[in-house]
């Protein structure tokens, strides 16, 4: 039972915090999300120099052999700074698939490029009728000589605008919602038949809907075993959950701090807002929500490498906790800021936007409450 960070982790956290403090004040952030790309390529280069892009990968492929706790640390700091970047989609999510499922040859070809920043990926798993069911895949991959032809429609693919390649889940056998029969393919964004409608997301980040119209891929572009991708996809999204929940904890912490500071200084009726007991008790609720989320994120992160059931159960519990708390904390932060909380110029609303996005990503409260239910007995300490 050890809740501490080791020295390397603390140094690492300091370096991310320093980056955010020095290069990512809120005004700069707003300028960055208003650019065409929705992130700053020179920051990406900086991430590479600092080793952040190499973090989760094995040393043999240019990586740093980091753990999920390291990813948690970076994501929490990103959450505090409301950092917009393809880090989650490219390094945490797509990177995890390659690291776990790719062949030696594929890893050699891709991981070093991911680690040095020259390659960006993303993962297209959602479809308009799939909701949060990762096995609900209508996109098809039919064999075509030595390769495959992909047809289908993927929605809300994060930072597809900056990705060189996109990992696509496609059905190779079975019916629309069968877990068996889903495979993963690496598709070049510029390939013939790939068309993307790019757009900003509500939190200022970027996504795209991607249409695959008879897109040809080679046998080499199959990642992992044919028909057996569902388990990797579930695992990958649990890594995504732990990472986004850590990000949410960072975001909620800032909302808590800013709101506390505001009610300590803002005066109404000749007293600070913070001296009104009704508001005090509500701030305690906010604080408690943040604390409970932090704990669950630690647990979800540490359980990523345990059994499937333990991983799923803890990730789902964290996602539910963060989904509920994100709304509570976001709403209270706005409410206690009054009219100022509604303005675009204050960061408050933008944190709620990010928390709203996180609540949806990888499945919402209802979805994960149901998944938790199926695995609850596997929560153990």
């Amino acid at each position, binding site marked *: 039972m050890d809740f501490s960070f080791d020295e390397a982790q603390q140094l690492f956290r300091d370096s991310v915090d320093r980056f955010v403090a020095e290069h990512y004040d809120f005004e700069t952030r707003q300028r960055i999300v208003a650019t065409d790309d929705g992130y700053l390529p020179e920051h990406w280069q900086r991430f590479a120099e600092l080793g952040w892009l190499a973090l989760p990968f094995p040393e043999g492929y240019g990586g740093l052999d980091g753990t999920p706790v390291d990813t948690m640390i970076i994501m929490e700091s990103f959450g505090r700074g409301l950092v917009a970047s393809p880090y989650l989609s490219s390094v945490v999510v797509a990177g995890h698939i390659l690291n776990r499922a790719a062949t030696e040859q594929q890893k050699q070809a891709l991981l070093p490029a991911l680690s040095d920043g020259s390659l960006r990926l993303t993962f297209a798993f959602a479809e*308009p009728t799939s909701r949060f069911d990762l096995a609900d895949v209508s996109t098809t991959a039919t064999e075509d000589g030595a390769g495959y032809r992909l047809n289908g429609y993927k929605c*809300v693919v994060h930072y597809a605008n900056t990705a060189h390649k996109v990992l696509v889940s496609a059905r190779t056998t079975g019916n629309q919602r069968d877990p068996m029969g889903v495979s993963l393919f690496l598709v070049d964004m510029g390939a013939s038949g790939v068309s993307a409608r790019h757009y900003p997301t509500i939190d200022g980040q970027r996504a795209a809907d991607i249409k695959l119209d008879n897109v040809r891929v080679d046998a080499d572009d199959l990642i992992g075993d044919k028909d057996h991708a569902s388990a990797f996809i579930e695992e990958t999204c649990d890594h995504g959950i732990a990472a986004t929940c850590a990000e949410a904890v960072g975001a909620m912490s800032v909302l808590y701090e800013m709101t506390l500071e505001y009610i300590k200084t803002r005066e109404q009726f000749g007293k600070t807002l913070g001296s009104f007991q009704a508001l005090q008790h509500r701030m305690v609720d906010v604080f408690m929500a943040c604390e409970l989320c932090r704990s669950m994120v630690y647990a979800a992160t540490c359980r990523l490498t345990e059994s499937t059931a333990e991983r799923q159960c803890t990730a789902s519990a964290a996602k539910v906790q963060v989904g509920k708390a994100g709304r509570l904390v976001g709403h209270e932060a706005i*409410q206690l800021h*009054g009219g100022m909380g509604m303005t675009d110029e204050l960061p408050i609303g933008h944190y709620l936007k990010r928390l709203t996005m996180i609540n949806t990503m990888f499945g919402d*409260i209802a979805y994960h409450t149901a998944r938790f239910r199926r695995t609850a007995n596997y929560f153990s300490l």
Partner: protein
Amino acid sequence: MDIAFSKDVQAFRQEVRAFIRTHLPDDIKHRVERGEELDREGHMGWHRKLCQKGWTVPNWPTEYGGPGWSLAQQYVFHDELAFNCAPRLPWYGWDMIGPLLIEYGSDWQRQRFLPPIASGEEWWCQGFSEPNSGSDLASLQCKAVLDGEHYVVNGSKIWITAAHVSDWMFALVRTDSSGKKQQGITLLFIDMRSPGLSRRPIITFDGGHEIDQCYFQDVRVPIENRVGEEGKGWSYAKYLLSVERIGTADVARSGTMLRRLKTIVASERAQGKPLLEDPWFADQIALLEIELKALEVTELRYLFETEAGSDLGPEASILKIRGTEIQQRITELIVDALGYYACPDLRPALWQDANIPAVGPDYAMLASASYFNLRKLSIFSGSNEIQKNIVAKAVLGL
């Protein structure tokens, strides 16, 4: 006891419904339905039709151009506007300036200001809040000094809904600082084109521009634009807040939003089935609909409990609190129902000259923006905390 509208009122409801369905342009209806802001011109096309019918100032007596409706007819009229996705009547004119001038205005003021409200030629905004007065309204500092036949106004007003499309502002200003803070406040009508009045748009975090801050630098306001007596502004403000406001709870608009939510869950799919068959959503919607029904009956009870229609006192606070909570919750559920398609920010695709195709279903277009925007409901018009303070004091005696 009989909880139903009379046959006459029900017949009237059908008449209103038929009129709206015949005359409300489809594009206006569609834009209201999905929560888009209308510009003034879009608004006026419909308003002129209502005006020809004599229905733009439903609460005014006939002598001032009103239709002479009973309270029940007024209730049903607003109900039908909401039910059929017609725009609201322009803020502040019919509901506040009308009753105010009829009660406290001079003859000249009534003749000058009432007709353009009914016709829609002049729109109004409310200048109450100030940067440092927030929930403590009476602490306002915007100053007016009498100089001959004019008040000279200096200061600032903030959180002014629709200032940028308004012709007039009714503003509380301080004409005397010597007494208690509620004293020495005066109510003025200020021409929005006055020299020295400047405006700063306030963009809310949903990206919309509904509110403004106004700055007054030696703005001269003719003395005849003062309502009632100097120094009595606080009592007029209290009168405005107490005016029987049908629709404080906004039940009908919530009902329309809830209908929209039900359409969405019937259309969205989870596990291959319509989302409305998902017990989680079904229960959440049912629980919310029950809250809404209870609020609806409560609003009717407060309005019609006594025969003449009672003035809504602090009960209005209850309607406001619960009504805004429900509206906010509906927008949350709509966002939840949309899944990933709540995420694209499609506002650019709405710009008139934009030629950008949307993604996802049309009903998803503004769902997240509405959710963010309606967080304002529990803050503006007296925050829900202030409303609870009012109920605690005025009803509970605490």
